């Protein structure tokens, strides 16, 4: 089964490498949303730094949602998804492999970009470790939960918008604790509790989502 998963991972990464636009777009979106914020609200450091934690997390969420639709769509359209599901390996392994690729391509770059974003929004530099750590632990959870939505709307017209509607309520706990951990970090407060909770959510998502998503794919 490991071989199966590795094959999927390699194949998906190769497909993305051939069309780097899919990789770049959500990241550009992420930076754009963050850049629009001061334009819409205020360029003052005092105001921006207060809301920075939340804004970055919301932008990360939206960027993740953008790229989620493609998780299963392309394979579904050319029929390869059905074939992969017929393989003698459990459906959840397929989901897990694809989610890993999705995170490597959307979540991880977000984590790496976050220092740049943080400076744009005047987030205090002492919040940086908590920002990167919370995003590191939180974005996989976003990818996993999103996979359920993506699986449910595969083959449905207008799936993108519907996907967003389905997934956003599920993201509420992640964004609450993700942003809270960054805010705490900005004030120099300990973030262990938040990280523990985010970690617990990730573990929980890892246990439930691949199974639920594969059930949804087989519909």
């Amino acid at each position, binding site marked *: 089964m490991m071989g199966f998963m590795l094959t999927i991972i390699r194949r998906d990464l190769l497909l993305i490498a051939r069309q780097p636009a899919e990789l770049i777009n959500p990241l550009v979106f992420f930076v754009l949303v963050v850049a629009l914020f001061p334009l819409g609200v205020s360029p003052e450091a005092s105001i921006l730094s207060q809301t920075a934690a939340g804004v970055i997390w919301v932008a990360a969420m939206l960027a993740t949602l953008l790229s989620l639709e493609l998780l299963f769509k392309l394979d579904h359209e050319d029929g390869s998804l059905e074939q992969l599901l017929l393989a003698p390996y459990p459906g959840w392994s397929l989901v897990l492999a694809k989610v890993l690729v999705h995170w490597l391509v959307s979540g991880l770059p977000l984590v790496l970009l976050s220092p740049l974003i943080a400076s744009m929004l005047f987030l205090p530099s002492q919040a940086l470790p908590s920002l990167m750590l919370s995003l590191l632990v939180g974005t996989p959870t976003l990818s996993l939960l999103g996979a359920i939505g993506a699986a*449910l709307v595969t083959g449905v017209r207008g799936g993108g918008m*519907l996907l967003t*509607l*389905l997934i956003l309520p599920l993201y*509420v*706990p992640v964004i*609450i604790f993700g942003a809270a951990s960054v805010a705490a970090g900005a004030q120099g407060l300990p973030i262990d509790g938040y990280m523990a909770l985010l970690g617990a959510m990730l573990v929980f998502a890892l246990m439930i989502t691949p199974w639920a998503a594969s059930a949804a794919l087989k519909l």
Partner: protein
Amino acid sequence: MSSLDWRMPRWFHQMGSPKWFYEWGGRLQPWFALAALILLAWGMIWGLAFAPADYQQGNSFRIMYVHVPAAILSQSIFVTMALAGAIGIIWKMKVAFMVARSCIAIGATFTAIALLTGAIWGKPTWGTYWVWDARLTSTLVLLFLYAGVMALHQAISESQTAGKATAILALVGTINIPIIKYSVEWWNTLHQSSSFSLTEKPTMPAEMYVPLLLMVLGSYCLFALLVLMRTRTQILQTQSQTKWLTQHPDIEGV
């Protein structure tokens, strides 16, 4: 067939038969209607005109008698919907999927009532119509969950697939509801200056508590009535080719 089949009593599988459900549902309906009418009327009149006013909130606390039942029902209906969907998937019962589908509109209505009455209650209590109170925020998220289930159901044309897909979504949502509630409550205590809770339940004297009980029971009866009605309508829509239906007195006695 699931390996759980042999453990389930006969009546469980009987309920899954559309004909049986139609018959018995039809017989139970009038009783639920009567009970709902009596309990809700009694509860509302008592709550409006006979219960003593609250020490702190005065007469506006009477809103509790509609807000709390609505909130309770909004959550129980979501769980019921998820359970019905799970039964539909495990035992492959079409009737279960129909029941789940009936729950969507009713549950969303109760959630909307809870949200609106909660907001209106906020005005005399806290001075504004909307407060990011933990309960109101969680209720708003619940409304979004209902909207998601509704949207997913409409987006999938094949009804069996739609039933299964919404069941998965409802189940995932149900698991998430306590997590969402916990995180929103936690978030709220972080930001809230006052510690007053909208549905604070101190030890209430019987004159205040009993009407609430009546309203909750009456609301459940109304829910049962509506689910029966809507599920039987779906049975009508899907069983129109069967003999038992075309020869049924409801159809023939025109």
